[in-house]
Structure formats: C-alpha cells, structure tokens
C-alpha cells in the first residue's frame, strides 16, 4: 500500500520485531549483560509442603571460595517489609520462608556467589533441619475445623468471604420451573513462558535507592508493592525492563517477590546481584492460575430461560495471598452472567489458603474457572429440559438492541451482536456438516460429541475491581479506586523523525509494529519511518499503575492512547504549517510524508521540516508552539467507575464475544481425545492487525487445549509436587494442537479510541469448557474434570479400575518390593556383617561416614542418583526385632535437599546347606523433589539400589573367584 488515502491500521504488516528475533539478536533479560562485579544468586527451596524450620546450617557453604553472602528468611525480614496483602486479614507475605515453609519450592536460603555454578555448589552444602507439619492441599479440606492452619493469625485457612446479591434471586428461584445445579472443580495450570524469570538488582547506599532490571510485565501497581517492601519511596526504586521478553501470559507479573528478594540480597552484598530462574524452579514456585471449587445453580423457566444464578465459589490461592490476589476471583465479577441476560444473581466468594504454590496472573485470569462452571451448566440445562444446547444459548443471549447492556452485577457490555455472530459461526463453520460427521461416527459405534460455548471476553481491567473483595464500608475507609490509565509519548527530533514510547512491556505481541501503523496513519507517514520503544524505565518514562501488558489492554487502551497522542501532535504540526501554507489549520492535510493544503498537494512542506522547526527556529513560532514536538497523552475511560454501594462493579471496559463449537472423538480403546473440528468466532471490535489477532487466537487456543487435555499442577496429599519437570507437566506440542477455524464479526467498541477490544485471552476462557462439553456429549458424562487425560476417561470407557493395593501415608509415593538372594556363606558370617559399621559402609551403595550411635542405631551419609537427580542424604538406620542369626528388621529415614523418605525392611536368613538364602521385603515412602522429578523412575532405581546392596553383601561375605576362574568353571574346566 502506498496510496495515502488507505490506512495502515487493519493490514497484516510484517513485524518490525522479527528481523532481530529471527537472527538471534533479540535482547531478552539474560542477553543484556551485567555491570562489572555482578554476583549471582541461587535459591535453596523447600522440599516440604509444610514444615517448621528448626535450623539452617550454613558454615560449610560460607567457607566455599567464591561465596559472598548467604541470606535466610530472618536476614530478609530484617531489611524488608512484608509484601502487602490485598484482603483485610492478619497475615504476612514474605518472598522467602520465615520460620515455616508452606509449599514445595518456597525459597529458604539465598546464596550469592561469583558465579551461578559456585552458588549452586554452596546450596548443596547447606543443611536445613525441618520438622514436617501436616499439609493440606485440597481447598475444601482446608476449611475443615481440624485442618492444619497455614497462617496462625488467621485461626483457619479462610482468608476472605463475601456475599453479593443482585436483583431478587430468592424470588426467581422460588418461581422457577426448574433448578439445575452443577458442581465443578477447576484444576491449576500455568502458561509456562519459555523464558523464565530474571532479576538484576543494585543498591546505592549513598542515595538509599534500588536500580532493578527484570523481565516484569506489569501491572505497575506492583511497583508500589515492591517499593514498600524495600522500604523506599517509589522514586528510589528504578525498575527497568529488557526490550524483549520470552513470553509471559500473565506469569511474569509473579517475578515481583524475587525482585524484592534479589534487591535485598544486593543491598546485603553491596554489589549488583543477578538471578535467573531455572525451569524446575519455575514449575514449582513461579506463579500458576488458581484452582477453584464451584457450585452453581440456575433458576430456569419451563421454556429454558435462565432467570437467576446462584454462585458459590471457593478459590484456592495457595500458601500466600500475593498481590493482586484474590483478583482472579474478582476479575470476572461484572460478567458472572457471561453472554446472557440474567437479572438475578447471588454470589458467595471465599478465598482459601493451602500448601501449594501461590497463584497469580495467568492468561484468561478468572475466566476459565467461571466459564467452565457456567457453560457446563448451560449444557446440563439443555439436557434437563430436553432442549438443544444451542437453543438454551440463543434463548438467553444478551439482545443486540440492549447494547450497551448493564449486567446485573454492574458490567457495561460495550457492544456486540451476539445472535448474528452465533448464526454466522454455525453457517461459516459448517455446523450442518459437523452434525452429519457426528451421526456417521456414532453409527459406527465411535464416541463422537459436539460442544458449544458462548462467552464474553473482558479486557482493560478496572483498577478498582479488586476492591470488591472489601465491604463497601472498608472501601470507603480505603478511598475509591478505579480507572485504567494508559499513556503514550510521541516526539519529533532535530531531523523531524518520529519516536513513540509506551509503557506496554510486550512479550511478543508485536506492539511496536501496531503502534507504528497507528501513528503512521495519523501523521501521514509510513510505519517504517516511526521508531517505537515499548520497554519501560520507571525513572524516566511516563507510566501509571495500570501500565504493563495484562488484561488484554494493548489494542483497546495502549494503541488507542497512542492515537490520541498522535492526534495531539498532528494538531500542533498543522498549527505550525498553516501560516507557511497560507491556509487555516483545519485545511492542512498530512499525507505521503508531507503537510499540504487541502485540495492542493503542490502547496506542501516536508513533514521533517515542520516537525523539526521548533528545535531549529523556535523564534519564528508562536510562543505556544515553540517547544519541540513531544506529546504525552493520558487516557482513562470514564466508564470504569469504582464499585458502588451495592457492590456493582464495571470490572472491565470492553467485552468481546466468543462463540465456539467443536467436534471431538474419544478413542474407544485408548481414551485419547482428538479434536476433529474446532470453530471459534470472535467479536473483538475493530481488528488492528489480522495476522496478530490470528496469532493471539491460535496461541490462546493452544494454551486452552493444554489445560483441557494435558496440563495440571498436581500435588500429593502431603504437599509433594508431582509435576516438577516438562516431562511431568505436559505442554502440548505440534502433534497435539490442530489449527482452529477462526471467524470474526466486528462490532467496534464505542468506548475505545480505535474501536478495538482485547482478544488475547478469550480462547483460554471458551475452549476448555467447549472441549469438556464435547467430551461429555461423546461419552454421556454428567460430570467432567479437567484435564481429560486418557487415564481419567478410561474409567468411563472400560469401567473403574480396582484400587491400588495400598496408598502411602499422607499421599507420599509408596514403594514396596521383595526378593531374595543366595550367598555362599554361613548365616552367622552374614549376621556379623550386618551389624558391623565398617562392613556396612562397604556394601551400602553410595554410603560414606557410617557411624554406630548405639548397638542397634547407625547414621550415615549416602549419595544416590535417581534418574536425573543425584543427591546427598542423611540417613538414620535402626535395627530391631533381632533374632540372631535368623531375622531382623531394618528401619530408617533419609533426608536431603532433594527429598526425604522413610522405610522398613524385614530380612530373614535361612540356612541352605552351608550357604544362606537372604530374603527381604521392604516398604518405603518417598517425598520431596526426588518424588516430583524422578517419580516414575523411583521404583526401578530402588530395585537397583537394593539389588546392589545384596550383591555387595554377598561379595563381602563370600568373595568371588577372579573372572577367568569363573569363566573356566562355567566351561566345566578347573583352573
């Protein structure tokens, strides 16, 4: 396109970001270098879900050359303040364990050393003594009176409870022809960006100020939280971000506790300190979406119209309430009726704490949890009333004529034509053909089902929605919070070239390209003429608390305010050019790199000359236009008001509409779910860049498909993490993700400068439940729990499996086995060996330093490698039930940085003509990192270790002949 009448916005331009990213010249956190003298941190983390810290022995680590500092929770507490907690409850939130650990992976000690390798060496030398406490991981169990309490100040694990009532739900339920209820538990998952967290921090004691470089994504309301924790005013916390970020999807908001931790370490060391999170740390302890238990009931008329909803939501935020939690629970508060016109709503919201990693932002943020309940319910209503699910959806959609539509709980749905979008999707997405495919498949006895979902996708969060967690009286005391400040700065330099800065902090969303298109349209330039900077330096750039990349706010808010800034700049340019062109300012046209008189393209000035004139010749300009051209625009939508006295909340500015349907087949034998046909219709308002919108949809779809079919952060009942690697936490690959059919129906938002709405999160809200509805349809299921792993569906296909023989106590990983070995030595000789520490040292695999502390008690250090995890364990062994020389019982426990366990083994010695048969049975329970990382290798590894033990015992008791003698014996010869 070169004709000046056309617009750049709306075209799928190649991205300006890509040339660098494709050639290895991206500038991600760890590519940006460090100041001279920078030290490197590594973090020792809790292997326990819940334990008291009884002691931390750091002397050996401190003595390691290269170690500069070792910091425990007590050290950090002495120099920082607890992270602020978003509810009125007596609890603290530290970035490192203080006195107690409350989840696997919680930081316990920070080691700072000359390089990361040395820092990790030092971690191995630290001994932490834990007294394990009972853990609770299930949100319902955590509310029981006898449940272990995580935060003593709270008395229980309930951190917040609020009830809301809109319209007259009791009357609606009383009058309802049908009451339809659903109970669901939505699991934890996370979007796992491929780049993990990184923080580089420096402290200047002369100015008592911190300079932090981190791949944080916003919102910058968190800047205030960090500064408060570091005990400095905001202007003494300079926070900068790298130009590129390797994905986030909300997750990199969760780097902020580590900013506090590493900044405190930098202060303690007097040197810059850098920390890069590794993947195991990320999977255990970065940030995940909440899991939620929901009971939802609908009042429904005989015709299928939903007249009321009664929500009971129990939100599990893990071991701490980290800012901005419990925002996941309130982000959707205005949209609790989804895409439907339902006037009566009751809501009970509870927040519970459990021994799991703390939660935070994650693509979809609250939407997946809400829509899984609501859209499963819509399918149940259809089945209960004998209607087609599409009919229930059609009957209840918000009517087009009602737009903009105020929902019962206070959201203002900005625009949309839901009914038309739905019918268009059915037509263009070949719904009729899908029905025929289903019928044909079912005729062959295959499990084929169709699912439907209609959702509204909120974007541009109201910074005040989270205050709905407070009562109106508490809000009044705290002062009103609202709005969604966005800002953009555009300037023209001394040669008239144009630079744009926004505090949008993208992680791959192509902001620089789209902003260049937006600004080029306003200034009559080409996008490639405009340079855009999207990273932030809080000491120099315009920013506010809503800055950052979250709540799908780029297209509606940031791109919009960039247009406003460009319009302000254009107004100044036309005022400067008008007298030179001898026309009034309103007759100046900006096009083709020139400013010219309307209707006379020859009466023109080069853009650069006008744009640079305040630099070179301010004296020729009127006083009000003599300053160089630099315009900073601010925008916050007036629609985003604070929650009112009735708890009505316009939680988001924009509401896109999504209608999805899909056909899936569940394999009769394997239980694998295959997506056969997936259609996703979006109304995200004006599309600014079709290629990027498609990218957001396919990317969100892949995350949602992972959440639906594979991904779940899983914990054993004792708090052990079971998904600690990418071999256990299954992220879908190119083999599992089909391409969805993407359709659009554009209803521009009347509330945003460009008419755009957010589009990045919608499929994370619509797709998990759409797939679940299809699988429920395929198998005739009443209840569906994600992820829909083949193992889960096998019970529906093949009947329930018999229970495993016995569960380990507290849900640890239980290992058991038995075996026997023949040793060519008399029993008495073996018996003596088993009771001799020196002999044991030689035969226990990996043992060193065995000590006999009583006639029947031993301690030892044992180094064992299990799968990829090699570690050192302190082992205590006791012999009991001694029946010389016939039998004894060996019991013991082991603890190390990588895990812990206990076990018992019975050993019997039976005489066999002078030789001895040693028979053994053992039972062991293993927890901690070794169980989460190497769980599936444990059984085999244990068998190997035990067989090594008995082979060594046999060798020690009856040394073998040399190999050549054995070979000759085998050949029947004698040496």
């Amino acid at each position, binding site marked *: 396109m070169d004709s000046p009448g056309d617009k750049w916005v709306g075209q799928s331009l190649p991205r300006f970001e890509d040339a660098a990213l494709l050639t290895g010249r991206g500038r991600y956190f760890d590519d940006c270098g460090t100041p001279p003298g920078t030290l490197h941190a590594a973090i020792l983390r809790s292997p326990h879900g819940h334990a008291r810290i009884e002691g931390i022995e750091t002397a050996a680590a401190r003595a390691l050359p290269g170690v500069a500092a070792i910091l425990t929770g007590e050290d950090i507490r002495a120099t920082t303040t607890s992270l602020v907690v978003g509810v009125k409850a007596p609890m603290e939130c530290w970035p490192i364990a203080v006195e107690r650990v409350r989840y696997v992976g919680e930081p316990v000690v920070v080691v700072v050393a000359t390089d990361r390798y040395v820092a990790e060496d030092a971690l191995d030398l630290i001994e932490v003594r834990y007294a394990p406490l009972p853990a609770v991981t299930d949100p319902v169990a955590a509310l029981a009176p006898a449940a272990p309490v995580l935060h003593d100040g709270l008395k229980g694990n309930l951190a917040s409870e609020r009830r809301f009532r809109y319209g007259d739900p009791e009357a609606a339920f009383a009058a309802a022809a049908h009451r339809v209820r659903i109970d669901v538990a939505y699991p934890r998952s996370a*979007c796992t960006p491929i780049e993990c967290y990184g923080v580089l921090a420096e402290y200047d004691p002369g100015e008592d100020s911190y300079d932090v470089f981190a791949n944080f994504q916003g919102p910058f309301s968190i800047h205030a939280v960090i500064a408060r924790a570091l005990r400095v005013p905001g202007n003494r916390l300079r926070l900068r971000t790298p130009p590129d970020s390797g994905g986030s999807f909300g997750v990199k908001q969760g780097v902020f506790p580590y900013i506090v931790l590493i900044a405190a370490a930098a202060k303690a060391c007097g040197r810059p300190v850098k920390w890069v999170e590794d993947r195991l740390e990320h999977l255990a302890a970065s940030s995940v979406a909440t899991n939620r238990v929901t009971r939802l009931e609908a009042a429904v008329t005989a015709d299928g119209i939903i007249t009321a909803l009664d929500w009971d939501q129990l939100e599990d935020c893990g071991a701490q309430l980290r800012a901005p939690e419990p925002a996941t629970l309130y982000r959707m508060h205005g949209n609790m009726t989804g895409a439907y016109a339902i006037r009566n709503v009751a809501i009970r919201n509870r927040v519970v704490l459990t021994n799991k990693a703390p939660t935070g932002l994650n693509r979809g943020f609250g939407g997946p949890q809400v829509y899984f309940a609501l859209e499963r319910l819509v399918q149940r209503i259809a089945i209960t009333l004998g209607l087609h699910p599409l009919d229930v959806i059609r009957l209840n959609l918000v009517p087009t004529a009602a737009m903009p539509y105020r929902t019962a709980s206070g959201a203002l749905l900005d625009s949309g034509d839901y009914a038309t979008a739905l019918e268009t999707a059915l037509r263009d997405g070949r719904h009729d053909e899908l029905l025929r495919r289903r019928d044909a498949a079912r005729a062959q006895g295959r499990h084929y089902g169709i699912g439907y979902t209609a959702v509204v996708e909120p974007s541009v969060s109201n910074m005040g929605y989270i205050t709905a967690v407070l009562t109106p009286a508490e809000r009044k005391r705290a002062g009103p919070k609202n709005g969604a400040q966005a800002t953009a700065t555009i300037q023209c330099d001394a040669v008239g070239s144009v630079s744009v800065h926004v505090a949008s902090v993208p992680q791959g969303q192509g902001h620089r390209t789209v902003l260049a298109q937006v600004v080029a349209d306003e200034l009559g330039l080409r996008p490639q003429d405009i340079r855009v900077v999207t990273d932030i330096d809080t000491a120099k750039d315009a920013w506010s608390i809503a800055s950052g990349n979250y709540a799908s706010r780029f297209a509606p808010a940031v791109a919009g305010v960039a247009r406003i800034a460009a319009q302000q700049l254009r107004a100044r340019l036309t005022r400067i050019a008008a007298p030179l062109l001898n026309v009034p300012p309103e007759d100046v046209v900006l096009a083709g790199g020139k400013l010219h008189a309307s209707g006379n393209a020859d009466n023109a000035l080069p853009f650069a000359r006008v744009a640079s004139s305040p630099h070179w010749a301010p004296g020729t300009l009127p006083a009000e236009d003599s300053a160089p051209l630099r315009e900073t625009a601010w925008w916050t939508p007036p629609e985003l008001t604070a929650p009112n006295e009735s708890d009505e909340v316009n939680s988001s500015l924009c509401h896109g509409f999504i209608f999805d349907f899909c056909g899936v087949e569940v394999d009769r034998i394997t239980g694998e779910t295959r997506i056969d046909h997936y259609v996703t219709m979006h109304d995200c308002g004006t599309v600014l860049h079709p290629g990027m919108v498609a990218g957001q949809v396919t*990317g969100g779809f892949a995350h949602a498909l992972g959440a639906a079919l594979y991904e779940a952060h899983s914990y054993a009942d004792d708090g052990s993490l079971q998904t600690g690697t990418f071999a256990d936490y299954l992220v879908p690959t190119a083999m599992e*993700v089909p391409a969805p059919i993407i359709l659009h129906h554009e209803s521009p938002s009347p509330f945003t400068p460009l008419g755009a709405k957010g589009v990045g999160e919608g499929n994370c809200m619509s797709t998990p439940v759409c797939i679940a509805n299809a699988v429920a349809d395929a198998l005739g299921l009443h209840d569906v729990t994600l992820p829909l792993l083949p193992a889960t569906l096998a019970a529906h296909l093949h009947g329930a499996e018999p229970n495993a023989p016995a569960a380990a106590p507290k849900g640890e990983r239980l290992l058991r086995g038995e075996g026997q070995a023949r040793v060519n030595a008399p029993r008495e000789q073996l018996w003596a060996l088993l009771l001799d520490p020196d002999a044991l040292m030689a035969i226990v695999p990996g043992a060193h330093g065995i000590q006999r502390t009583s006639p029947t008690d031993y301690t030892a250090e044992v180094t064992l490698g299990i799968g990829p995890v090699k570690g050192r364990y302190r082992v205590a062994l006791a012999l009991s039930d001694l029946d010389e020389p016939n039998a004894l019982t060996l019991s013991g426990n082991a603890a190390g940085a990588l895990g812990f366990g206990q076990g018992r083994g019975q050993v019997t010695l039976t005489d066999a003509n002078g030789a001895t048969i040693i028979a053994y049975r053992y039972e062991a329970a293993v927890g901690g990192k070794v169980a989460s990382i190497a769980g599936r290798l444990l059984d085999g590894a244990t068998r190997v270790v035990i067989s090594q033990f008995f082979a060594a015992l046999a060798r020690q008791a009856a040394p073998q002949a040399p190999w050549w003698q054995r070979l000759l014996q085998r050949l029947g010869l004698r040496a």
Partner: protein
Amino acid sequence: MPRLSATQRHSIRFTLNGTPVQGEAEPRMLLTDFLRHVLGATGTHVGCEHGVCGACTVQVDGALARACLTLAVQVQGCEIRTVEGLAPAPGRLSILQEAFRRHHALQCGFCTAGILMSLDAFLRAQPDADEAALRDLLSGHLCRCTGYAPIIAAALDAAARLRETAHA
C-alpha cells in the same frame, strides 16, 4: 580422549558459524552457558535445561543437539551452527527466516532459534517433507505463543521455496 580435571578450566576451541572460537571453561560448563556467556552468542536460548523444550537446539557437525544437555568440552574441535549463522548476510534473512516473518510464525521469539535450527537441518535432509513429517519434527520443540499453526505454515512454505531454489 583427554582426561580433564573437574576443578580446572580447560581451553576449548571449535568453529562457530564458520569462525574459529576459543574460550576457557570447567568441564561441567554447559554448552549453552559457554555460547552465551563466554562467547557472547546469545541467540541460543535456555528454556528448560532438561532437554524437553528444544529452545537451545544447535547443530553440531550437522547433527541436531540440545546445547543444554551438552558440555562445552564435548564440542572440542566441532563445527557448531547456531541461529546467528542462518542469515546469508547482515540485514538479510534466509528463505526459512523470511517464511517465519511472512507467516507470523513467531511472537516472543524465545523458542524460535531452536526451531529454526531443527528446520534448517531437516529441510536440507528431507526437502520433500510433508506436514506430518514437519509436525513430527516440531514435536521436539515447545512454543507457547503461536499454537504452532503459523510455524507449520511457514515451514511448508519454506520447504516449497527451497525446492524451487534447488531446481532453479
């Protein structure tokens, strides 16, 4: 094979994208850390350090390798290719890179280096690769941004153009 002391730094020499390079490292240093922090070749990214995500994939003597599961001392004397070596000249992109840009086959770009290295080697060995073969190859890489569809499209497009170039 030389015997190396665990506690000493050793001189390591190899060819990186056609240029001889040299540095020192302890035997335990990963190739990723050596490339990125000793040589300053930061185009190769670290995503999981346990061999699953594929972000660190490089070519060692023409074969694909996870640089996070390779020690720097193991590539002594080898020819290493990384993403920095794919473009024909500064300011230009290869056919494969150009296809990625055209199809929006990257967003954050963090996994992209490894994917490009895998596709570069694969399309050379199997210029007629179809979608199924490409999906199979790409299953060794995790991308969290794109949903893979545009990557498949870019790979198929690049394969077709590379065949045309080969026949021209």
